[in-house]
């Protein structure tokens, strides 16, 4: 604390050297913590880009046949190297269908929590449960869909759609939470103004409240999609394995970038590993594009609302 040089006069000079040193040390430690986070991220990004970029070209991204991991590199050169087109198509269609299921339901759930539930015990319970559900491990979602969908349907149950169900279970609580937070920010005066004009609650919600919160809801949903696109565990037991493009989401086994990487990692063959790196770079690119899209929507929305 401030040292007094003579009675009645407060010394307002800088804090003592030791106190300042401690302060600098603490702030330095905080920056160090940030560096601890940046360094591994940098290593991963550089590693994936260096190892994956050499693999990526047009035919790698579009060729629909994933070669068996045992194919020796020499033979692969003769037959054409194959590509990850099938896995890209799989990831895109599975994630898209999961979004089609989870985003509308999640937004509607958030509408219930914020517009209809109010402070009722049921709404409070559901809000709490959706919080808790965001913490359910993704592999449990995979096992859940396996038990309720794949076991009753047998091997025909393994399809892109089953994977979409698992991802949708994962996305639902995330979409509910983010939409709920956005709906809470919509000022009540907007709702009251619309009621005063005689609009019903459904109309107020659909034409006034949801559009007002649209930017935040869309960006939250995009982040949920980005997270789902990278998930592996929910797809391991639900989509099966296939080495050629399966455009039909609803029947037949499918494949995805994440599960492809997971299976290629464990192969002892260099060409399989190279495939894994190329697929990893593609997957990171997809996830980053979704995240950047979410950021752009947020930025645009902020400018608009200002």
């Amino acid at each position, binding site marked *: 604390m401030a040292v007094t040089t003579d009675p009645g006069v407060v010394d307002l000079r800088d804090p003592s050297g030791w106190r300042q040193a401690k302060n600098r040390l603490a702030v330095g430690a*905080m920056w160090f913590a940030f560096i601890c986070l940046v360094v591994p991220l940098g290593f991963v990004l550089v590693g994936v880009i260096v190892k994956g970029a050499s693999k990526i070209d047009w035919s790698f991204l579009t060729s629909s046949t994933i070669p068996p991991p045992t194919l020796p590199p020499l033979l692969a050169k003769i037959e054409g190297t194959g590509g990850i087109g099938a896995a890209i198509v799989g990831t895109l269609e599975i994630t898209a269908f999961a979004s089609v299921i989870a985003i509308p339901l999640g937004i509607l759930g958030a509408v219930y929590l914020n517009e209809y539930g109010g402070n009722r015990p049921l709404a409070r319970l559901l809000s709490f449960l959706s919080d808790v559900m965001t913490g359910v491990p993704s592999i449990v979602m995979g096992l859940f869909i396996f038990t309720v969908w794949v076991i009753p349907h047998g091997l025909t149950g393994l399809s892109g759609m089953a994977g979409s169900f698992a991802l949708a279970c994962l996305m639902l609580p995330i979409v509910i939470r983010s939409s709920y937070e956005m709906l809470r920010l919509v000022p009540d005066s907007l709702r009251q103004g619309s009621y005063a004009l005689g609009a019903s609650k459904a109309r107020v919600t659909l034409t006034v409240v949801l559009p007002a919160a649209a930017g935040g809801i869309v960006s939250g949903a995009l982040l949920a999609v980005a997270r789902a696109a*990278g998930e592996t565990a929910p797809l391991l037991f639900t989509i099966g394995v296939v080495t050629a493009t399966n455009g039909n989401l609803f029947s037949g086994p499918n494949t995805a970038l994440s599960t492809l990487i997971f299976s290629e990692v464990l192969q002892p063959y260099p060409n399989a590993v190279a495939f894994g790196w190329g697929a990893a770079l593609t997957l990171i690119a997809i996830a980053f594009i979704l995240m950047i899209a979410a950021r752009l929507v947020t930025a645009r929305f902020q400018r608009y609302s200002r």
Partner: protein
Amino acid sequence: MSTTMQADPATPAGSAAGLKPVRSLGDRSFQLLALVSGLLVLAILVLIAITMSQQSSQWFTSEGWSGIFSTDWDPAHNKFGAMTFVYGTVIVSVIAIVIAYPVSMGVSLLLNEVVPRRWAQPIVYVIDLVAVVPSVVWGLWGFLIFVPWLQITVYPHIASAVNDIPILGNLFGFLNGNYVSGASFFTAGLVLAIMIIPIVTSLSREVIATVPREDKEGAYALGATRWEMIRGVVWPHSQAGIVGATLLGLGRAMGETIVVALLMGSSPTITSHLFTPGYAMPGVIANQFGEATVGVFRAALIGMGVLLFAITIIVNLSARAIVNRNVRRIRGTA
């Protein structure tokens, strides 16, 4: 949707029942739709508990409690004890939060109390990048680059340095005199820590943001340095909430699958040596489910999922309760 849009006659203002709103069919069905969507969360959670317990019942009937809680895992001889995997999960996730807690703490204080707002945004972007890197990419990088590097250039040196120190030697020393492995409890914990730091940081920031501005400015007015202000004002206000945030990270770490499936060495062992291979619950489910087509084996793996579900639900419930109570308490008094 279409019905809700058209069914919307304005309430007749001057009618006898004018004070009581007339609710159209569309209005009510929209409410019902919203309610059903909300209830879906409850339904899925209940369904998970019921169907998965059913599918794993064979495990309980054939092994009994003592079989389940044994350390004996040998599918070839129909032995399905889960304890080694529970041990692996607990150790790995504890390592993860021990590392993630101080780092998240530092980053969230940095963002909320140190850097100006326009610098904070780029830092948040970087944290978001960490969050969006898929777990399988961490696994790939860890398996092919990080693990070999640790095994050759890092762990042997640490182990030989601490081998003769009593407690540290038991944790970080060699097993059986000369053995360390790159794929180990510690490696998996380390990578999990990086993966949970974004979520712990963002929750901690929410908690720290509730510290009243007046208190902070009061501390500065008394001549406190930034660090003294943090120790004296931010810390006491947000400690409980940050513990909750870390617990939530613990739940995440327990359920993360691919990293423990690839970076832990997949060997069911119980040991205090953290530089040696272990096995965690999500890892064994992911790695062995393909072989477990029928019978007790599959039931045991699904049962392991039930166990994991139960543990993470308990961890999450308590974490949420702590965070919510803390945030509400502080907002209430502010």
